[in-house]
């Protein structure tokens, strides 16, 4: 490991703790993905790795490079913000696609389309046009 001797003790210990925390949470999420039974339970498990797993490893990287250099380095915040913003988008799209596929197959145990709040957009216009 290069420059590791130049790292202060508190920075090395903090980096070690944060790296272990992040990797442990990611592994926990992966085991959850293996053990959960249905897709809608499984979709929650990897978010352990994408929330605090990513944040902890990004913080470890920030601490490490800030302690090595003379000025604080915050480039890695970009990764943290990007993962935090994009993961919910991906998982919501994926969950809606899974719900759509389950409904299209007529699977049991899937929540039905809400009667109180009919879907807006293209489908409703098509239906109301056909009804009239």
């Amino acid at each position: 490991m290069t420059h590791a001797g130049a790292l202060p003790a508190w920075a090395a210990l903090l980096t070690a703790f944060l790296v272990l925390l992040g990797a442990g949470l990611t592994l926990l999420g992966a085991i959850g993905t293996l053990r959960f039974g249905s897709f809608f339970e499984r979709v929650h498990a990897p978010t352990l790795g994408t929330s605090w797993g990513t944040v902890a490893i990004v913080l470890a990287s920030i601490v490490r490079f800030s302690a090595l250099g003379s000025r604080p380095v915050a480039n890695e915040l970009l990764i943290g913000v990007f993962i935090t913003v994009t993961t919910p988008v991906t998982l919501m799209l994926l969950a809606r696609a899974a719900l759509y596929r389950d409904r299209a197959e007529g699977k049991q145990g899937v929540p039905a389309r809400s009667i109180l709040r009919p879907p807006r957009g293209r489908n409703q216009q098509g239906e109301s046009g056909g009804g009239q």
Partner: protein
Amino acid sequence: MTAIILLWSVTAAQIMLVAAMGCYTYRLIRGPRAQDRVLCLDAIYVSAMLLVLTVGIRAGSPIYFEAALIIAVLGFASSVALAKFLMRGEVIE
């Protein structure tokens, strides 16, 4: 002493991340349906990004940060494209 602690904890973290990628790969192969596979592909992208970050921490070089950023962006784009494909049957309408 602290350098040895840091080296060993980074090594343990890399082993844990590889084990996580192994779990996701098992679910990717075994997964009963297509959405499980897309979910695991997204999670594998994130784990690989974290693995590259830990390699950067170990090497003390800031170059790995840019590789991790590119992996994050590509993972998001590919997962959204695959989810859109599962939803509609085509990616760009």
